[in-house]
């Protein structure tokens, strides 16, 4: 159904940005407003017309109370802004491609209408974050524009191919601007799909939108670019290290997780220490020396991926029904987020046995996130092992999910799946649990 405001604007020939005079009733009195017509908010009930007054403030005017409206001046066609896609190269600087996948790392605000536009041309980036152009010759490329929560495996494949293409055509590193909600999943996916990686691949995002002066976007992008020209030939996530605008952390793509809904320092390494601390001025403090070093050679993309994989969380009261459903629907793999050391209720075990009998790979991780699963300590664990569950060491449930999809893209032989799940491809499994990897 058409909202009142849309109908009203249509009836009066009102366009966004038109200067109008509105007279409305307020009790027995009349109030007159002059200002610009603003676009109605998406999903608002639409009972009001939004006007931007001369002092810059917006107010809503109840449409049912409007007595008259007069257009004083039609909106002028906004000057079409043209920004250069590529800027002249600077000699002696490395080259970095920035792939855009959605969200904004820089934006322009139209203070007249309040509209915020994403800015992704080289010229706009150079204006918004000039610092990165002193670090490298930057080639921005917008791949697609989706919300982080709408990310899916087919997009991972596209990102992987574009990244490999850039790296194999001589770029020194690739930065991928990504929404933060599912950045950890994409980082894991790229970690498995990009084989023989010889250069840095850095995922970056922001927790505060780039239209605000306090945004973390610029600093994260600068630090990401620093890591993209560094010596680390791994898939990394580079984001704020703490709430202060001091340094960023470069996390290994398979061991990183978004741990806070809103803080800048939301990304934390789990069960592992980050690769490095990085500052905007180029200082990098390596926190470990076992990272993969920059080298020679073509990057390969191995993007075979089975999408019929699910994550199943265990909770008191859960039954085998959910798992049965997945099996019946033809799922090929399930990552269980078990309790504690990696458990399910005992009465769920028959369902797991049935799943395995049907050729479904069932992997065990822990909803504790921190620590390693161990199915030998309690009898439940031993029963689960006997049922054919693959215990995933200290892998994050999300990483195990992505890895299982990737592994199942290569084989459906459960024994082989088990062997591959326990092979360390991209730092997703640490051999032993270090003391200094908890809550850091």
């Amino acid at each position, binding site marked *: 159904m058409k909202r009142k405001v849309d109908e009203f604007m249509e009836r009066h020939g009102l366009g966004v940005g038109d200067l109008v005079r509105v007279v*409305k009733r*307020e*009790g027995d*009195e009349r*109030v007159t*407003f002059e200002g610009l017509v603003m676009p109605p*908010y998406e999903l*608002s*009930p639409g*009972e*009001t017309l*939004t006007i931007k*007054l001369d*002092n*810059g*403030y*917006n*107010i*809503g*005017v*109840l449409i049912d*109370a409007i007595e008259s409206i007069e257009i004083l001046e039609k909106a002028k066609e*906004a*000057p079409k*802004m043209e*920004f250069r896609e590529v800027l002249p190269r600077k000699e002696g600087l490395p080259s970095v491609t920035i792939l855009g996948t959605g969200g904004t790392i*820089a*934006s*322009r*605000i*139209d*203070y*007249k209408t*309040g*509209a*915020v*536009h994403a*800015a992704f041309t080289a*010229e*706009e980036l150079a*204006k*918004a974050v000039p610092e990165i152009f002193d670090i490298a010759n930057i080639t921005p490329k917008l791949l697609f524009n989706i919300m982080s929560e709408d990310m899916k495996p087919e997009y991972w494949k596209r990102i992987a191919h574009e990244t490999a293409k850039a790296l194999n055509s001589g770029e020194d590193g690739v930065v991928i601007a990504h929404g933060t909600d599912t950045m950890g999943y994409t980082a894991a996916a790229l970690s498995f799909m990009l084989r023989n990686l010889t250069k840095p691949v850095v995922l970056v995002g922001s*927790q*505060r939108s780039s*239209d*605000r*002066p*306090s*945004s973390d976007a*610029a*600093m994260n992008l600068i630090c990401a670019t620093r890591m993209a020209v560094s010596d680390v030939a791994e898939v990394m996530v580079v984001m704020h290290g*703490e*709430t*202060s*605008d*001091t340094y960023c952390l470069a996390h290994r793509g398979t061991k990183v997780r978004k741990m806070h*809904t*809103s*803080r*800048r320092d939301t990304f934390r390494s789990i069960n592992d220490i980050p690769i490095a601390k990085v500052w905007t001025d180029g200082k990098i403090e390596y926190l470990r020396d076992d990272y993969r070093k920059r080298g020679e050679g073509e990057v390969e993309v191995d993007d075979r991926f089975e999408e019929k994989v699910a994550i199943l969380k265990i909770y008191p009261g859960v039954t085998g029904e959910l798992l049965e459903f997945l099996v019946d629907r033809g799922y090929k793999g399930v990552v269980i987020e078990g309790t504690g050391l990696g458990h399910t209720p005992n009465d769920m075990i028959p369902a797991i046995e049935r799943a395995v009998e049907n050729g479904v790979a069932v992997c065990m991780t822990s909803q504790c996130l921190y620590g390693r699963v161990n199915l030998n300590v309690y009898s439940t664990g031993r029963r689960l092992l006997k049922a054919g569950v693959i215990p995933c060491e200290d892998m994050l449930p999300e990483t195990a999910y992505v890895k299982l999809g990737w592994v199942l893209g290569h084989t459906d032989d459960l024994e082989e799946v088990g062997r591959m799940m326990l092979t360390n491809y991209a730092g997703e499994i640490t051999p032993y649990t270090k003391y200094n990897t908890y809550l850091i």
Partner: protein
Amino acid sequence: MGASGDLGRVNYEELGLKVGLEIHRQLDTFKLFSPVPSDLSDEVDFTFERRLRPTMSELGEIDPAALEEFKKGRKYIYEGNYKLTDLVYMDEEPPRGPDREALEVTLQIGYLLNAKPVDEVHFMRKIVIDGSNVSGFQRTAIVAVNGKVDTPWGSVGIPTVCLEEDACRIVERREREVIYRIDRLGIPLVEISTTPDIHHPEQAKVVAKYIGDALRATRKVKRGLGTIRQDLNVSIKGGARVEIKGVQELDMIPLIIEREVERQLNLLKIRDELKKRGVKPEDIKEEFYDVTDVFQNTGSKIIARTIKNGGKVLAVRLPKFRGLIGKEIQPGRRLGTEMADRAKKYVRGIFHIDELPNYGIIQEEVNAVIEKLGLGEEDAFVLVAAEEETAKNALREVIKRAKEAIEGVPEETRRALPDGNTQYMRPLPGKARMYPETDIPSIFLPPEEKERIKANLPELPQERIERYIREYRIDRSLAETLVNDERDELFEELVEKGVKPSLAASILVVVLKGLKKEVPIENVTDEHIREAFELYLEGKIAKEAFEEIFKELALHPEKTAKQVAEEKGLTLLSEEEVERIIDEVIQQNIEVIKAKGMGAMGMIMGRAMAKLRGRADGKLVSSLVRKKIQKIAG
């Protein structure tokens, strides 16, 4: 008209005086965008630091000066308290709210100021990148429009009533960083601005009082230092709009306006004289003369020390300015003072020819500078002693101010001083850059909700005074002071609890005001007062004890009323104890009583009360004494 200021006869209408007010007041609710208590504390639990990057406009432009400033690395350090802030104000969580009570109070204020509420409230982000708002913007919304205040001089419009968030408190400004305390950020602030239709200094006070009354009527505004901020915009014909910030007291408003008019008139006189002398802004050149050698053996300690530390004495020529730099423009303030205020960013002070010889500088040195600069009879100089670059920067400010003097009155933001004068603060702010706060859905105000608020408006202070006189039968002057000093809420609470209105009023007004001269009475909190009255109602103290208790609490606010009463021996004695003390007094004076009978009553009462004042009810003592004397006298 000189500094003496016989302004009573000034015809403000003829001068084209225009004044507008902007009043900010904190609301006593939770913070605006998450339910954090609106309190301040000096306890710092943690700090964090941020930078604020200038944002790009639609045309892809960034203010180059702001970007340059950013690149220099200005940092903001925020001091936080776990209880009094949260992630919202640290800009680490999206805003919640707004606080419904704050919104409702703002609507009440709107109605009390004859304004009309909007149909839908839209919060905006107003860009502020001095660090005082952690996010880099202040959230603000128009809640009501088109109000007015009627005064004997005419009606003054109130175009907007806004609800916004207060900013951080500044702790320290350093060269590359500013330290803020974050606790104040987010306290709801009502902003009321008037049209510039105030044409008389007294009218401004009447308008400010009216607005203040409407605010207080809600009983939901904060009290005390820093909770209210009144800004004045003042201009006269031929002068300029000057924004005066930080006016604390209502009574000062007319004086500040008078002084600003005086300042602008005197600056215009200086301009006219400079015009007559034929000087143009371009005649003032940015040429710095090194006159350090003139002061090699100076008696000026400041200059001698600067030279010893490797600094220089630099001078600039101000052609045709002789006699005008020293001209008084406000009592005790000269054009030279205004130049010094501008230079304060770099140096502590300047020296100008009109005030010399003085400050250890002798005539010979003045003459030597005049000669070195080749000054004519009407020409002036200004000196600065400092490290060379600093001195140059300071003198550039002086030159800028001198050029403005040729044009007349500069538009600027000034700070109100306690004596009614004003001092340069910064240039007038540019037009605010605003865009919608998309994290907060717009708030629809249904007509029936508006009606409900309108039908239940709080009593205005004037009505309250009349009601007190009528209902509680207290003096008009007591009633007025209770209401105007904002003790009315507490007063009603005490009466409700059973304190006699006349007693509550006289303690709150007479006793507390009387102590003002002796002790810092503002330290006595409502909680202290409540507690003392509770002791009284429980029969633990006499009404005579209040004064002593409040006096001690003013000096030691960390104590409780009960503690003080016990320490000072002000708790009431039991009837038996009273009787025992009276018996003692009687025994000591038994001869007199025997001789005079009831005639000894006055003397015995006096001696007994000397021991019992504040510790026993006077009536009880008197009846006991009477009974006992009668018994002895038979």
